[in-house]
């Protein structure tokens, strides 16, 4: 099934994984199982939210990134830098210093991702005003949320606003601007510094689109280290480079929770962050429990993008620095020193005309089978198995809960004897001997964790 192809940026290194179950217990979509002593991901259930990365004690969960040297495949190398990237640096490092250093790293152009913020929010507001019948409309800003809705709340996919993310609009703008300047489009490479796994996945396989406009992704933590190292080396001797004036105050804080909602004007709208909060709320939305709901800004990470798994530093400090920067910008905008309407508005018609994404399809991970009769059989099996399980959610079977094990069994991905309680039961009835039990445990937990049992038998 090609439509089920999902690029995942989150991966688990089996050589480092210690099989501790922390990721499995914290995964909001129950996408992780332990097999042979290592965590493994059910790709169709993973939404790239990064909760597993946050709780992994051994660093086994990692985020795949492109090789930095791949920027040199292009003559013109544009770095797309989100405002949260700047927010990571301590106050004594200036924007112009960051711009200067990042250029020296090998880029020919620097463009802030939120340059398109006001155009983006304009398009979104217009879309909402034209689609009253689809309310509540849900922002697609956070790609983890888009995937969450596709797999877990498929009835809400039509409520998603099918508009490109600011990073894509900005990418389109740069590409257009440079080609208009006479540069061959083939020579332009766009590289996006990403704060999280979901944004990488979206850049690799955009939802509702055939191909990505972005040529490569650079993880924010890697870039932070590269930039900070160079700044430390250079001290105060850096070559000054004027930071660009492309982003407005609204753009700087667009990526914070409430950054989108504040640019809308609806009677009943919410900005909600942190994936479990979002899931709790969507459950109600799906039941039509909340009347007259108009707009939802939903973010998978606490505080929005400062809480992304690849950002460096504390999310509250990052957020505060972004707010400070936005405040300064806003003051300049008020005093007429700079305008909210930036150069990008010269291309607004082009961007608006190309801002739509294709249809966002549901990809339910809940369905047990396409065929209702088979699904019904499986469901009946699940209910039967659930009655036999202890409901301790002890994780010893390698599944996150007894319910998840029951589902795995019904779908032939596990067996009832994977449950330790069932094993003891079978042993008492002489249907299973100790060696066989240990064999089962070995399949789940690996040779290493069971070796004492085997030696001492």
């Amino acid at each position, binding site marked *: 099934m090609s439509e089920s192809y999902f690029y995942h940026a989150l991966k688990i290194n089996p050589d480092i994984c210690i099989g501790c179950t922390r990721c499995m217990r914290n995964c909001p979509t129950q996408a992780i199982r332990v097999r042979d002593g290592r965590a493994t991901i059910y790709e169709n259930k993973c939404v790239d939210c990064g909760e597993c990365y946050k709780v992994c004690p051994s660093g086994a969960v990692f985020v795949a990134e492109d090789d930095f040297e791949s920027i040199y495949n292009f003559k013109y190398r544009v770095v797309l830098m989100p405002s949260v990237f700047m927010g990571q640096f301590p106050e004594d490092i200036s924007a112009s210093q960051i711009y200067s250093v990042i250029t020296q790293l090998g880029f020919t152009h620097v463009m802030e991702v939120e340059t398109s913020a006001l155009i983006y929010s304009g398009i979104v507001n217009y879309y909402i005003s034209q689609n009253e019948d689809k309310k509540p409309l849900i922002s697609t800003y956070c790609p983890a949320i888009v995937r969450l809705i596709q797999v877990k709340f*498929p*009835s809400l996919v039509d409520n998603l606003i099918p508009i490109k993310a600011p990073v894509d609009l900005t990418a389109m703008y740069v590409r257009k601007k440079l080609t208009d300047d006479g540069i061959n489009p083939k020579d332009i490479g766009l590289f996006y510094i990403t704060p999280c796994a979901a944004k990488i996945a979206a850049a690799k396989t955009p939802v509702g689109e055939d191909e990505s406009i972005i040529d490569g992704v650079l993880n924010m933590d890697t870039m932070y280290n590269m930039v900070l190292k160079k700044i430390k080396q250079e001290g105060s001797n850096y070559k000054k480079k004027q930071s660009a004036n492309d982003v407005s105050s609204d753009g700087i804080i667009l990526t914070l929770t409430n950054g989108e909602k504040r640019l809308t004007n609806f009677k009943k709208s919410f900005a909600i962050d942190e994936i479990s909060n979002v899931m709790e709320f969507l*459950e*109600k939305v*799906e*039941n*039509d*429990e909340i*009347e007259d709901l108009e707009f939802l800004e939903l973010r998978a990470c606490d505080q929005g993008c400062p809480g992304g798994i690849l950002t460096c530093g504390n999310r509250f400090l990052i957020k505060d620095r972004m707010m400070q920067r936005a405040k300064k910008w806003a003051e300049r905008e008020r005093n007429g020193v700079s305008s909210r309407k930036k150069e990008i508005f010269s291309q607004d018609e082009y961007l608006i005309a190309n801002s739509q994404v294709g249809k966002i399809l*549901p990809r*339910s991970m*809940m*369905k*047990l*089978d*396409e065929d*209702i*009769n088979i*699904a*019904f059989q*499986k*469901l*009946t099996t*699940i*209910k039967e198995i659930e009655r036999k399980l202890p409901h301790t959610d002890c994780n010893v079977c390698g599944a996150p809960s007894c319910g998840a094990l029951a589902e795995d069994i019904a779908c032939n991905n596990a067996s009832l004897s994977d449950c330790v309680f069932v094993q003891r039961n079978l042993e008492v009835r002489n249907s299973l001997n100790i060696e066989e039990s240990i064999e089962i445990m070995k399949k789940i937990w690996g040779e290493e964790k069971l070796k004492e049992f085997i030696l001492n038998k």
Partner: protein
Amino acid sequence: MHTEFVVVEGDFANAGKASSDIKKTLKQLNIDNGKIKKIVVAVYEAEVNAIAHAYGGNIYVDLDSEKISVVIKDKGPGIPDIDLAMQKGYSTASPKVREMGFGAGMGLPNIKNNVDFLDIKTQVGVGTEITMVVNF
């Protein structure tokens, strides 16, 4: 397949338990999203009614591969004039219930709009039994 739920009088905080559980099951069966929404909305309204107007009650869900049938049964005051109760905007909800955002008199009409079959048996002083069916 048969499932049961208990609805507790006055427990608005837990309204939606039965409808959420039904929703999860129907998603597993890969039922059309529109159909899921219909039954979920209808059950939710009936749940709230049993909580608000009666003294709680029981929900019985029967499911096969062709349809879902839900019975909400309460030992409440009953509905004296069912035609009146079915009218949009008719409500006897107390100010306290209205404060919680219910009592627009839209519940029963909403149920009727969403299900393929509806039967209401009610007797004053004895209780109300609502049966609804959505065909897949």
